[in-house]
């Protein structure tokens, strides 16, 4: 049973560029959440997708957008990259949005903005 997978593992971009990160949820899960984790800090919630719609959103600008596909996989898009966007981007999946659902995390994508 595959867990949460993310691609790519590492990525280097320059300021102003756009990036797309991908996530496949754990088998049987239909909810995907994205987090940004800067070096030495805790993960910060970006948004959550369920039934192909954004259900919750953290305090991130509109440069951060996402998408969920019918197979429950998800993409995170970041436009107009800033140096401060350099971080580990984590994807987590969970079941059908109940209050007891446990989030399971992928290994993350390390994004470096130069």
């Amino acid at each position, binding site marked *: 049973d595959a867990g949460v997978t993310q691609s790519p593992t590492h990525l280097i971009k320059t300021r102003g560029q756009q990036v797309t990160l991908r996530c496949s949820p754990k088998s049987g899960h239909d909810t995907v959440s994205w987090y940004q984790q800067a070096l030495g800090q*805790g993960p910060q919630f970006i948004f959550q997708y369920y039934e192909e719609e954004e259900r919750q959103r953290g305090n991130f600008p509109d440069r951060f957008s996402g998408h969920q596909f019918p197979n429950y996989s998800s993409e995170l898009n970041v436009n107009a990259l800033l140096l401060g966007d350099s971080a580990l981007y984590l994807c987590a999946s969970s079941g059908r949005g109940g209050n007891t659902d*446990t989030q399971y995390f992928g*290994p*993350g994508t390390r994004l470096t903005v130069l």
Partner: protein
Amino acid sequence: LAKTTQPISMDSYEGQEVNITCSHNNIATNDYITWYQQFPSQGPRFIIQGYKTKVTNEVASLFIPADRKSSTLSLPRVSLSDTAVYYCLVPMLSSGSARQLTFGSGTQLTVLP
């Protein structure tokens, strides 16, 4: 402002019990508290989850008081491989009745031989 607070770091010796507390001032009413372990450059790994009172599994216990404004992760008989950062994840009330998943600041646990 919804906020969670944890000690920045803790040191322990092998075989001791370690307790890490997370304070959360505005937790959503009907949601669970979850604790994760994270090693460098890896995603957080689930440890334990609870709603109130005490929960125990094969690796840890979780204590949650009646007011649910804090939670304490207890790791019995730690080993060197338990050296990691430990986070609480708490659904917090933000503007209006919206919930926002909020990680604690993280506690670096160092287990010494």
